[in-house]
């Protein structure tokens, strides 16, 4: 009983640390957030952070993994036959839920710890794999133009990133993806779809 209660408490503390870290990374950025900030926000001692994560880098990697894993799972739920629009729409929905965090990832991606950076590429791989399957299926059915997968994927990512990085220009009073996401998706699909 005691063991179970202790395990639950441990799990709750770990969750609180991860949630607080994600919130701070979104608000202040990865580079500007210290483990002491995370401990304070989570209401735990500084040592407790390191009881759950051996290093600061491990904490960053874990937060990035949780964020990306949720989006990748959302995109993977679009089963075969869902089409390019459904894959990109699921991707967009996942990003819109956490735009501030995503913006920091884009801005500071190159300065992330090596494992977190690699994790980001793994997550992008999960999304580009779904997109590749949908593009191939659409092209074989004649509904989607045949374009190189890397070009389509990077064009889509580049478009979204441009809007979130320059939110002050595109949506000064709101979120860039909530304001522009659907329009961008429709216009992107206009480029890809074959017209009869």
């Amino acid at each position: 009983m005691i063991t179970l209660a202790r395990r639950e408490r441990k799990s709750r503390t770990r969750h609180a640390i991860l949630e607080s870290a994600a919130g701070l990374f979104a608000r202040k950025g990865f580079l500007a957030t210290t483990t002491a900030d995370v401990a304070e926000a989570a209401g735990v001692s500084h040592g407790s952070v390191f009881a759950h994560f051996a290093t600061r880098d491990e904490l960053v990697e874990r937060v990035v993994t949780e964020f990306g894993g949720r989006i990748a799972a959302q995109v993977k739920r679009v089963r075969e036959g869902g089409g390019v629009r459904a894959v990109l729409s699921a991707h967009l929905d996942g990003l819109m839920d956490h735009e501030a965090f995503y913006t920091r990832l884009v801005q500071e991606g190159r300065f992330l710890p090596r494992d977190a950076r690699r994790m980001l590429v793994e997550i992008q791989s999960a999304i580009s794999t779904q997109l590749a399957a949908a593009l191939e299926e659409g092209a074989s059915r004649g509904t989607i133009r045949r374009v190189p997968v890397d070009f389509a994927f990077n064009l889509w990512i580049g478009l979204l990133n441009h809007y979130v990085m320059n939110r002050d220009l595109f949506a000064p009073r709101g979120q860039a993806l909530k304001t522009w996401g659907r329009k961008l998706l429709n216009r992107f699909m206009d480029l890809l779809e074959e017209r009869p």
Partner: protein
Amino acid sequence: MTACIACGMPMEMAEDYALGDVTKTWCRYCARPDGSLRSYEEAVEGMSQWMVRTQGLDLEVARRMAVETLDRLPAWKDRGRVR
């Protein structure tokens, strides 16, 4: 949900597994035509080429990422590193 021991891909449907056999621990992408698990070298090459094709990464960067990813997975983590 289980994940492929050799590339980490989540496997939910029977079609995700090698030869559609849910008793296998690796996915259809990590299987040779006869269903056996491909080698580590084949896995590194396959994953890096896929990253180049779908994300346009530099081949050398893709190989490094593939090695770092694969070396953590159950199928490969206890093997001696191949460079």
